[in-house]
């Protein structure tokens, strides 16, 4: 029986029809070999659009389907399903991308129409040679790994654990908590960060369904959706977590120091605990200290003379011989929640960070202001005095062509938070140097309004320079902020005691590594790329890998938590299905043609091609094959074929492109 191809051309409203002459394309398609019907419709992806092709298949009018519309990355699945509902194998469908790669990108509508014709001719020729493939289903392992234990990872892990699912939470640092554990108060409600975070951290530590691995890093991820294999390195803490009860005797007596201190208040700030054996912070989960071998006297000295902490520990938990441990386990899904790092302002020389005293970053201020920080929450200058005036510079590293184009979304708000907290704790005069105020969240504008009544000076303009070189008496011993006040149209020099740089959020320096391990891409902005910016914000191009929190883009805590819950519910929906269909387009060896050269065995990145000694030919393990086609292209005998991307199917597409010539 001859092949009968149905071609469906989508207008996509005016998205395609505005640039492509649909009538001409329909006429053209009708003239193509093996095409038995051509229809065009306003929105092929709509229910009636799908029903159109489904019915034609049902009625037995066609046995191959071509849809010319948007990108297959957008709707291939939609139309495959419609084809299947009609009763045809879903792989007997193919698509021509006449929107993203045609009507949207070219100016001349004559040329767009020509291109659409060529693309449709190519798809029709390809359709002629398509073959039905059998569905492949794999079971989904109900356990999930969450990478990163900030508020995003904590929320996602708890959601899943509460639903009765097993979770492994892997955190690189000795404690979970992420950035939020460093804050004293959170905008806009000013609720105490520790008060809302600590109970959740404790739940994570105690939950029967959560296995917590701190001070650990994911080394390798292999496998595929439903069946990932994770290898984690648990770094040696040198403290036995089974024995330690977190009493603190060790670090209280520790004679070493992690940092040579000069006595300057600010020099202690970002460093946190100062002894080589240390607890990251008081509410740490797990409440188990770690030894920093770089500075520990025992490790630095060949004779290992110190050993004081071991002597002090009543439970014998200190173990200097401890080694890194490698653990392997299997999971069905992965949630990446590795958060962000803050922009390093020392690259902006004119702001003097790291050069001039009393210029600090927001995070340093956050730590100083935190009750459990090194000043006990007091706001102090480097010399220990109380500042009489403080300036807060917005958008440092954000909204700046030289650094990051994007807005970091939280800096305006945390800057306002600082103004409020400074006013609460000191009598200092406070200046906010801003470009625009961006207070978009729930209760944010209201918070800004409130601050407007708290005697804070708002100066609109980008700060040109922070200097300690005075030009008059009043500026002596001060930091001078030079700024163009765009509301009065004048350049001003404002002498201050302290300057806080509201540094932006950026993707982790190591984000690329973890992204690569999980086959997820990093965007130009340095954050992870989601599957769809609007409709797939927590899934990624790789099935079974989800993202949540500030690793996807700068975010405040409410958005982070919402996204984390979205990711966990996406995972739950995967787990509930129990099985998932995976790509059927794998590689296959034609045993008659295989010469047994084994070249393909070495080409496969997944070790899916093995040599069968008995038969003397190579065989593709269908469960491991991901269908990249590298072995196919490399086979000198042409013995391997890539299902759905066979040589002759691709040749047919090439021929189709030129058939209109």
């Amino acid at each position, binding site marked *: *029986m*001859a*092949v009968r191809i149905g071609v469906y051309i989508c207008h996509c409203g005016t998205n395609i029809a505005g640039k492509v002459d649909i009538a001409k394309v329909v006429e053209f398609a009708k003239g193509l*070999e*093996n095409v038995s019907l051509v229809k065009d419709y306003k929105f092929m992806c709509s229910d009636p659009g799908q029903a159109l092709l489904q019915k034609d298949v049902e009625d037995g009018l066609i046995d191959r389907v071509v849809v010319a519309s948007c*990108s*297959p*990355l*957008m709707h291939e699945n939609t139309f495959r399903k419609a084809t299947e509902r009609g009763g045809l194998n879903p792989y007997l469908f193919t698509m021509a*991308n006449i*929107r*993203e*790669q045609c009507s*949207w*990108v*070219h*100016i*001349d509508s004559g*040329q*767009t129409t*020509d*291109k659409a014709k*060529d693309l449709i001719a*190519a798809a029709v*020729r390809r359709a*002629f*040679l398509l*073959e039905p493939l059998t569905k492949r289903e794999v079971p989904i392992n109900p356990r999930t790994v969450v990478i990163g234990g900030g508020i995003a990872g904590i929320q996602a892990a708890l959601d899943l654990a509460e639903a009765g699912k097993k979770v492994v939470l892997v955190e690189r640092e000795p404690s979970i908590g992420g950035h939020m554990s460093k804050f004293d108060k959170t905008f806009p409600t000013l609720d105490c960060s520790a008060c809302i975070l600590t109970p959740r951290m404790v739940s994570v530590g105690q939950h029967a369904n959560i296995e917590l691995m701190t001070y650990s890093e994911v080394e390798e991820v292999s496998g595929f959706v439903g069946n990932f294999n994770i290898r984690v390195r648990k770094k040696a803490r040198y403290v036995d977590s089974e024995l330690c009860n977190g009493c603190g005797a060790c670090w209280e007596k520790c004679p070493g120091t992690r940092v040579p201190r000069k006595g300057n208040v600010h020099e202690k700030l970002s460093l946190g605990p100062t002894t080589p054996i240390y607890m990251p912070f008081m509410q740490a989960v797990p409440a188990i200290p770690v030894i920093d071998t770089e500075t520990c006297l025992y490790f630095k000295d060949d004779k290992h003379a110190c050993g004081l902490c071991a002597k002090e520990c009543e439970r014998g938990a200190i173990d200097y011989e401890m080694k890194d441990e490698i653990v392997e386990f299997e999971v069905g899904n992965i949630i990446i929640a590795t958060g962000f790092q803050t922009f390093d302002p020392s690259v902006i020389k004119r702001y003097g960070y790291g050069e001039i005293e009393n210029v600090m970053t927001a995070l340093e201020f956050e730590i100083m202001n935190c009750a459990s920080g090194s000043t006990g929450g007091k706001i102090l200058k480097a010399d220990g005095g109380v500042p009489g005036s403080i300036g807060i510079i917005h958008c440092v590293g954000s909204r700046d062509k030289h650094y990051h184009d994007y807005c970091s979304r939280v800096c305006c708000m945390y800057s306002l938070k600082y103004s409020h907290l400074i006013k609460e704790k000191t009598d200092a005069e406070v200046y906010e140097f801003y470009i625009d105020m961006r207070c978009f969240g729930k209760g944010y504008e209201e918070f800004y309004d409130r601050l407007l009544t708290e005697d804070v000076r708002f100066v609109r303009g980008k700060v040109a320079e922070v200097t300690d070189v005075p030009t008059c008496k009043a500026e002596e011993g001060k930091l001078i902020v030079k700024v163009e006040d765009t509301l009065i149209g004048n350049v001003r020099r404002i002498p201050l005691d302290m300057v806080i740089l509201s540094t932006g959020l950026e993707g982790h320096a190591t984000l690329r590594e973890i992204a*690569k391990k999980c086959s997820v*891409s*990093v*965007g*130009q*902005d340095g954050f992870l*790329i989601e599957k769809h910016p609007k409709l797939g914000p927590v899934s990624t*191009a790789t099935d079974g890998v989800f993202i949540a929190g500030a690793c996807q883009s700068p975010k405040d805590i409410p958005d982070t938590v919402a996204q984390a819950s979205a990711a966990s519910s996406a995972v739950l929906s995967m787990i509930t299905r129990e099985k998932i269909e995976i790509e059927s*387009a794998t590689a296959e060896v034609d045993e008659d043609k295989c010469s047994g050269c084994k070249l393909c065995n070495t*080409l496969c*990145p*997944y070790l899916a091609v093995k040599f069968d000694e008995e038969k003397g030919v190579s065989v593709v393990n269908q469960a491991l094959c*991901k*269908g*990249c*086609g*590298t072995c*196919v*292209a*490399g086979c000198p005998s042409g013995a391997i074929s*890539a299902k759905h*991307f066979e*040589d*002759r199917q*691709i*040749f*047919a597409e*090439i*021929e189709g*492109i*030129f058939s209109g*010539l």
Partner: protein
Amino acid sequence: MSFEPKIVGFLCNWCSYTGADLAGTARIKYSPNLRSIRVMCSGRIEPTFILKALYEGADGVLIAGCHPGDCHYQEGNYKALRRHRMLRMILPGFGIEPERVRLEWVAASEGERFATIVDEFTEEIRSLGPLKVRDSLEMVLSEDVILNLDTAMEEGGDANEA
């Protein structure tokens, strides 16, 4: 009329095809001379695909894959790179300028870069002029590659049942 080159693109699904889609979503305009074929990975692209495209009428062929280290299948793009180098060495033997075949890395986020590459490449091929020596390729392409679909169709009806 000025010469409008025909260019065939082979784009890997994960980075380059997505990058090309992004150019669309962002409505970046570029020259309409390219017609792309999607493959799962640049590692799937065989030299014969390129020769076949040139034989059928392409004046230039663009291969695009993920940046080194970013391949969705770990290292398919390195294989693509090797094959590309090899192909460029043999092309002059057929009287074909190696510049007619270009390999580029385009990430999923590089819509703008994709458009720039297509524009530049189109101009380069325009200045090289039409490819004239297609027939020389008959020597390397086997008959079933040359007559791919025609053979299939002549076999009559459903190629799969044949």
